[in-house]
């Protein structure tokens, strides 16, 4: 079976019990989505579009009101499947401070394994391995609050990959980081996907991060409105803007130039491609 995460006609509502009578707000209006094993999918959408809610449904934190969700073959609506799903589908959140439980890096990475009841020697081995994978091994005895944001987030990722999950859901993992921290985290995420074959679902606001994915899913007010490879998504500049989203800076630049009548390809999403295209435009004779 090739489909790894799947949702069929998924509906989900939050219930606000503070009001009388309780107010029900439907956040996901029947989403169907299949994610294959080993894929790197970016999920875009402006605030409140339901993208985090969707991710939490795959991790069995949210239970669907209607429709069905399967994570690596387990039915996410069944109580007894909670732990198997969470072992296989790890989740990293936005604020690294609020997901680190222990006061020492290595003890935090061990947390999930201790919960799973893994043997002590095996825990030690996997913790070291996970810390080396995210390149934080030499910080294993440090206190988390003394690390930088990017380092903390890598520790959080190590805590997840120590479980050896088949999929990692990242909910805006770089939103609170500086550019250096963002680059570190993205490098780790790409490495997980390419070298370890982990399925990645990356929720983000940064278009240059989304451009690195194999596939982009755009969510708008609880529905999937676009689902394609990055080049196809970002070439629809007007549609993205109408959804309140950006495109990578280089794509916008090329789009602007095309509006002015320059002859450029419309599917440029990386700086290198942009550089080549502009070079070709400025010095047609150099481009042999």
């Amino acid at each position, binding site marked *: 079976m090739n489909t790894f995460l799947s949702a069929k006609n998924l509906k989900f509502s939050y219930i606000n019990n503070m009001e009388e009578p309780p107010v029900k707000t439907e956040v996901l209006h029947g989403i169907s989505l299949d994610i294959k094993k080993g894929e790197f999918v970016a999920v875009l959408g402006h605030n409140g579009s339901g993208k985090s809610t969707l991710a939490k449904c795959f991790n069995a934190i949210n239970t669907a009101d209607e429709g069905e969700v399967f994570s690596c073959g387990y039915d996410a609506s069944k109580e007894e499947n909670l732990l198997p799903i*969470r*072992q296989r589908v790890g*989740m990293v959140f936005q604020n690294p401070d609020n997901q680190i439980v222990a*006061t020492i890096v290595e003890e935090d990475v061990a947390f999930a394994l201790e*919960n*799973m009841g*893994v043997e*002590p020697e095996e*825990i030690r081995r996997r913790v070291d391995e996970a810390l080396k994978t995210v390149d934080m091994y030499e910080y294993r005895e*440090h206190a988390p609050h003394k690390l930088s944001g990017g380092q903390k987030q890598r520790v959080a990722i190590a805590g997840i990959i120590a479980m050896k999950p088949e999929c990692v859901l990242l909910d805006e993992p770089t939103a609170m980081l500086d550019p250096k921290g963002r680059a570190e985290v993205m490098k780790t995420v790409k490495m997980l996907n390419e070298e370890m074959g982990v399925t990645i679902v990356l929720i983000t606001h940064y278009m240059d991060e989304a451009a690195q994915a194999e596939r982009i899913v755009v969510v708008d007010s609880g529905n999937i409105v676009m689902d394609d490879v990055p080049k196809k998504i970002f070439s629809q500049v007007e549609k993205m803007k109408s959804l309140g989203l950006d495109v990578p800076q280089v794509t916008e630049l090329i789009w602007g130039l095309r509006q002015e009548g320059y002859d450029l390809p419309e599917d440029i999403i990386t700086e290198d491609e942009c550089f080549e295209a502009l070079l070709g435009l400025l010095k047609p004779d150099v481009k042999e």
Partner: protein
Amino acid sequence: MLKDITIGQFFPGHSIIHRLDPRVKLILTIAFIVMLFMAGSFYGLAVGMAFVLLSFALSGIPFRMMLKSLRPIMPILIFTAVLNIFFIKTGDVWFHWRFITITQNGVVSAVFIIIRIVGLIVGSSLLTYTTSPIQLTDAIERLFAPIKPLRRPVHDLAMMMTIALRFIPTLIEETDKIMAAQKARGADMESGNLVKKARALVPIFVPLIVSSFKRAMELALAMECRCYHGGEGRTRMKQMKTSLRDYASLALTAVFIAGVVFADKLGPKVF
């Protein structure tokens, strides 16, 4: 000012003290406290203090940390000293003016008690300096394991302690940020009488509490994502093993306690 709080701080290291079994360390700390209270003369006290200094030297913790741990208890020290000096009226009178009488016994007992309190604080902070909070709560969990059948939630309490200690630095940082933010909006926290100052703290504590709740929700979610489901079936990465050095340190402490008792017989009793 908030940065001075050293409670629950841990300094990772590999000294012999760091490597002691945390359960043994906990027992030793309690034994050490008993030892200091047994000491009734300056000789006995000197033996007890020698024990503290020896442990501190072995732990490799910088000496200034010892002084730092004393800073918050300065008011208590001064208060106790003043009480002892002015209210003990036995012994040779050294100074007398109207109703103020300072006697030899008063001064001697003030010095004695200050040394004892300093020893207590320094010795017990050595425990948290050299033991990571998780190990410490683990040790508490194991030592109290015998009362688990009485349906006491030992694991849950230990987990709560760990999280509390983990969040001390985070919340201190946040308090600093909120204070700066409120000051930037013109909040005045320094002037006025006590009531006014206390009122000025409200705009700091309200956001702090609100954000703590948010943090707690997020942390709970992250813990659930990492398969946390209570203490049942949990294993630990760091196993606790008592080794030769644990027995050696127990023996050494016993020798020191005997030393205190013996030294007390030699010197004049203060208490």
